[in-house]
């Protein structure tokens, strides 16, 4: 440790030099924080793309859905591919509808309930897909500064120990150790600030999208319930 401080008095203070001079714990903290930063930005990029795509899909689906196209036709085209968001909810509801009618459902109330359940499950899955990994953004945003501070405290501790060893309070001896320690806090903040901003933005977006999905689910449930009534009434009248 003494060696580090004494070298620090003479060596340069570029970023790389500061990183290399740091102790093992501080180095690990810095590396962990850089990893967290990479992860944060990976999530940010991923969420940005996926949320944008989801919003576009929602718009397209709603356009198609309210275009007056036959639901059967729509189901046929959608069921052939992987669906997310509103499409997935629609497909799950339609699948349950089809199954019930193919086997000749008796009770309209039971059918309604099953369809609602199927839609709820899909809705929950989709919402989870939207908000997934946002929690890690929240964690990095809140814990990043603390981790960086931990690295700083450890770094300053070691540099003070080095001062005690070298028996010199010259600022040139003290300064590099503190600068290197503060680098850890800097990296922590670099990781945490975007994480906090991104978390707030994406959790808001996810809330909006899931509200949209719930709205669609309720609307579709209402439509299906009307359809059930319409289809089951003639049957009941015939009997």
């Amino acid at each position, binding site marked *: 440790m003494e060696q580090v401080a004494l070298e620090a008095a003479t060596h340069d*203070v*570029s*970023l*790389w030099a500061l990183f290399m001079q740091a102790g093992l714990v501080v180095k690990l903290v810095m590396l962990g924080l850089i990893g967290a*930063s*990479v992860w944060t*930005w*990976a999530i940010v990029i*991923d969420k940005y*793309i996926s949320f944008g795509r989801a919003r576009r899909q929602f718009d397209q689906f709603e356009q198609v859905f309210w275009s007056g196209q036959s639901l059967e036709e729509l189901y046929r085209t959608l069921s052939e591919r992987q669906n997310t968001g509103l499409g997935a909810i629609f497909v799950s509801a339609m699948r349950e509808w089809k199954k019930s009618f193919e086997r000749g459902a008796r009770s309209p109330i039971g059918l309604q309930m099953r369809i609602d359940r199927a839609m709820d499950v899909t809705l929950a899955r989709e919402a989870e897909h939207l908000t997934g990994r946002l929690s890690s953004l929240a964690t990095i945003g809140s814990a990043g500064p603390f981790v960086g501070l931990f690295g700083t405290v450890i770094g300053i501790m070691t540099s003070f120990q080095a001062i005690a060893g070298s028996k010199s309070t010259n600022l040139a001896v003290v300064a590099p150790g503190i600068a290197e320690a503060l680098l850890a806090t800097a990296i922590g903040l670099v990781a945490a600030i975007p994480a906090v901003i991104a978390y707030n933005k994406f959790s808001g977006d996810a809330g909006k999208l899931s509200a949209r999905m719930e709205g669609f689910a309720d609307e579709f449930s209402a439509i299906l319930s009307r359809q059930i009534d319409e289809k089951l009434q003639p049957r009941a009248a015939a009997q």
Partner: protein
Amino acid sequence: MKGSVVASGILHGLLLAAALVSIGAPASFEVADVEALPVDIIPVESITQTQQGDEKAEMKEKAAPIPTTKPSTVENAENAGDNDVDLKSAPVPITKPSNIETAAAPEKVEKVLPQQDDVANEIKEIQQEQEAAASQEVALKTEPKEEVKPDPKPEVKAETTPEPTPTETAEEALPENVPVPVAKPLQEKKPEEKKTAEEKPTPETKKAEEKPVEKKKTETANKNSDDKSKEDKKKQETAKSKSSKQSDFNADDIASLLNKTDAKSTGAKRSTETAALGTKKTTGGSKLSQSEMDALRGQIENNWSVIAGIEGADGVVVRVTMKLDETGDIIGDPQVVASGGSETARRTLEGSALRAIMKSRPFKNLPRDKYDAWSEVVVNFDPSELL
């Protein structure tokens, strides 16, 4: 997700690379190149104990006063000088010719006198004339008492004064009065009297004609009265000069009154040095400075192993007197005297002090040029500070 992680990783890598390249080491602060100000710590003795050399002499290694002329007469004298008795340089008053001092004074008084309207002086004059008149009265016995006894009023005095004074005695007294020493400031008084005597010669001749026998008596009596009048005049002079000094400030008088002393080398030890203006190096006096004394004390204290827990060691002060040669080694036996505290503590501390001194000989870092100051040195210790 993989794609975004890779993208993020690449982004970070690029950013770090850019930071390493562009940020690098920050520019170090430019510290103004201030030239270090050299500071010398000079002992105050270098100013207070400077020695004055001969101004006309050349610079030499050692500053020396003017060489003495007489051969050595007093043995074991300590102070340089031409004196027979060895004295420290004591103040010696300047001996000036006395006539210079006195010559200036009378003129001053003369100028002041006519303007002076002092009551004391008038009274003195009256008294003097009264006495003179009285003496004449005794001798002549012819003059009426009314004339002699003047009222204290100035009018009466003006009438009476001319009559008793213009006797022959006044003329005879003149030659006696003239050679009065110069020290007497009031010389003008006599010409005045002379005038009065010349102006009114009639009563004088009358008296001379009428009573020639008694004239001798009057002469003798007047001689007596003259002596008296001299004394009175002296008194008057002093009174007048006093009043004149009170009124008129004369810088010359003050200067003559000042006790001018001349610092001379009054010792009896003959200086063998040739006169020199001084040296290029400052001597700094011949006294050990506080720091030099502390350094000496520190050398002893470093070698002093004080035994802790001596009973009655409080308040013990150890006084060490030792003679040193020029290498700092001790000559003879150093005297160690402890005072205060208990007997055993004193003895123990004396022993330990002596050991410390012997251990730390020869003493280092003593200024060579002040050897006179530390050739015999007294160091005081408070052992309780060492504990």
